[in-house]
Every structure is written in structure tokens, then in C-alpha cells.
């Protein structure tokens, strides 16, 4: 995604992949409707990454809800959290959280409770 390679990203996505973005109405980069289809999802991901790369974003892979996820932070504070749903080796769902009010759970790690 960071290299801007749309075709490369499409390869990772299932044809009917869907991206949901939750910006809580406060974040411009968050799509208000789900984005459907591998190509559109890939273009959106690459486009958003390009736009935000001007800011002081640090992108890291962290464990979120028990699975690897991409976390984009500024000054150690999470701004975007992207989790994926993988079936049969392809990404079928991309969940992007951008609502600042819903990123409190990213401050410190928790044990996974039973």
C-alpha cells in the first residue's frame, strides 16, 4: 500500500472485497459508504495512504483484537487502525477506524479475556 502499487494490492484482495471506514462524521478521509470491489478498495487504500503520508504518520503492524493490523500514528497516538478479514488467503474485508473518539483502546495493550 505504501509503495502505491494498486495492482499489487488488488492481488491480495478477493474480487468482492469490501472496505468499511468509520470516521464518525469527523474525518474527511473516511468513506461514508462501504467501498466494494477489489480495484476500488485498492485505489482507495493507496489514495488515502498517499494523502496522509505528507503528515508525520508512522505506520506499524500491531496486534489488534488478536490479529495483525496496520496502525498509523502521529507522535505515538493512533490516528487510523486498519484491520483485515482474510478468507482462503485473500482479504475479503477491510475495516478502517478513523474516529478519534473510538481509538482509546489503542493506548495500551490488553490480555485477551475468555
Amino acid at each position: 500500500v505504501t509503495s502505491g502499487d494498486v495492482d499489487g494490492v488488488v492481488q491480495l484482495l478477493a474480487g468482492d472485497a469490501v472496505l468499511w471506514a468509520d470516521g464518525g462524521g469527523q474525518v474527511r478521509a473516511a468513506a461514508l459508504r462501504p467501498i466494494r470491489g477489489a480495484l476500488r478498495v485498492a485505489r482507495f487504500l493507496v489514495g488515502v495512504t498517499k494523502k496522509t503520508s505528507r503528515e508525520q504518520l508512522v505506520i506499524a503492524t500491531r496486534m489488534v483484537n488478536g490479529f495483525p493490523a496496520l496502525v498509523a500514528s502521529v507522535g505515538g497516538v493512533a490516528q487510523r487502525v486498519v484491520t483485515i478479514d482474510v478468507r482462503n488467503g485473500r482479504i475479503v474485508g477491510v475495516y478502517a477506524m478513523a474516529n478519534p473518539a473510538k481509538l482509546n483502546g489503542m493506548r495500551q495493550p490488553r490480555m485477551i479475556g475468555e
Partner: protein
Amino acid sequence: MREHEPAGPRQEHALVRLTAQRERLFAIAYRMLGSVEDAEDLVQETFIRWARVDPNTIESPAAWLTTVVTRLALNQLQSARKTREAYIGPWLPEPMLTLDEPSPSDRAELADSLSIAFLAVLERLTPRERAVFLLRDVLRTSMKRSHGCSSYRRQTAARCFIGRANVSPPRPRGFTPIDEHTPNSSRVSSAL
């Protein structure tokens, strides 16, 4: 927990057990609400209620706590429904940073039931369907293993909700064991 009694070994033992329950109750509340802060508040409220009852009247503290936290979550979810319907854009559960220790395979299903994808699917259920599904289908195995609840009692707790809700919720898509996609997840994330 009891202020009027000196903390004897028995009380201390009870306290240790309650602390162990905190993590479990948080996970239930979080799966119900999809909100970290709200889940923490509910766990707190559950313990406050626990402090008000006579422990001798409670046969299984674990089952009692599960019931209370689930009912509180159910109430909150029902009153939060309008807010979520008026939400701008898609409503997603709050992500939560977790310790990156590899999950042993026996906890795989448990970890999967905390995934954002799974919780997003739960949003399609009504609050009651969600409670029933979580208690009956998701928490079944872990309760049996770690808290020694008899299967009879677990069934009773679940049936209590099923009876009230009178539903048989569909099994949401996306509840597959972690080992089906863990290698792929890591491959995909490293590719990203």
C-alpha cells in the same frame, strides 16, 4: 469486598477469584458493545452490584457475574441503538490493542470471536440475538474449561436468555477457527 468484615483467608480467596473474573467480564461486555470504555464501565457496575449481594446466596459467582454483565450490556445496547442508527457512515467496533503473544491453538476460537470482522457481523443482530449468540455459541467452551461451571448451569444461563428472547439467531458468517487464516493474515500484513 465486604467492608464490615475483616479480610480473612476466605474473603481474600474470593477477592482473588473476582480479580480473575475481571478480564473475562470485560471480554463479554466488549463483545456485546464494541466499546472499550463502555465495557470497562459495565464491569465496574457489575462489581458494585456484586458487593451489594450476600455471596452465600449465590451458587456460582462466575455465572452470576456473567448474567449481570450481559443484562447490563443488553440494556445499554438497546438504548444505544438510536444513536448508532443516527451515526454518520458505517459504525465499526472500537479496535483494541492486544498483547502480541501467539495464541495457543485452544484459544484460537476465542481470539477469533474478538476480531473486528466478527464484531462487525454481530452488529447485524438485535441486542437480544447478540446476547443469546454470545452466551450460547461463543462463550460455551471457554466457560466450561476455565470456570468449572457444570454444563447444566451453562445451559440454564443461556436458555434463560433464549427463552426471553425467543429467537434462534443465525450463526454469523465469519466465525471460523483462527488456524484457517493465521498464516495468511501474517503473509498479507507483511505484504502490506
